[in-house]
């Protein structure tokens, strides 16, 4: 079974600074997908960024980018120029080729003005 580990329960960053959230996973599969989701207090999960395991190039979405290290099974999220609206719970998720999803336990990000 796949597992996803987020080792940082809480992180904080100063507004306009950069922060990196860590995620490691365990799998025996070679093809899969990785995601970062954001969950604000409204509880609705919002997709931040997605990475296909077969792609070597790291995904980027505006201020959000990932550092995907397939051999190390690591998938960290970097948020640049942090904004107050980035404050939320962030979940790393693994999706197998068969469509089975596994989520980490989340990292609470606080952005200080």
């Amino acid at each position, binding site marked *: 079974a796949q597992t*996803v580990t*987020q080792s940082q329960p809480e992180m904080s960053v100063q507004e306009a600074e950069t922060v990196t959230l860590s995620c490691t996973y365990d799998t025996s599969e070679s093809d899969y*997908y990785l*995601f970062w*989701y954001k969950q604000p207090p*409204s*509880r*609705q*999960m*919002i*997709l931040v960024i*997605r990475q*296909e395991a077969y792609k070597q190039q790291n995904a980027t979405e505006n201020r959000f980018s990932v550092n995907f290290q397939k051999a190390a099974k690591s998938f960290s999220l970097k948020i640049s120029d942090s904004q107050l609206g980035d404050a939320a719970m962030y*979940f790393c*998720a693994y*999706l197998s*080729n*068969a*469509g*089975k*999803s*596994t*989520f*980490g*336990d*989340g990292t609470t990000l606080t952005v200080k003005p």
Partner: protein
Amino acid sequence: EAGVAQSPRYKIIEKRQSVAFWCNPISGHATLYWYQQILGQGPKLLIQFQNNGVVDDSQLPKDRFSAERLKGVDSTLKIQPAKLEDSAVYLCASSLHTTNEKLFFGSGTQLSVL
């Protein structure tokens, strides 16, 4: 486009009572998921439907939980009887297909069992 709709938003019941949650996925989305999110944890998949068929219900406590997806559209999740440890947020999500697809989530139902 309209998002994933869930109701009710909050529910408080006493243990041993029954409760039902409703989910309306995004129109045209074939796959529907129910997740249980206990406070301080990530979502845990309870059941996954592809159209109106069950793809994965390996983590659904079938002695008390049941779910159905009528006509491959709306879905209901029921708990009967509820236990204290069922207190959680129940999230519904949908996706266009199954593999590699982005999930669209509803706002969830927060259940408190007293």
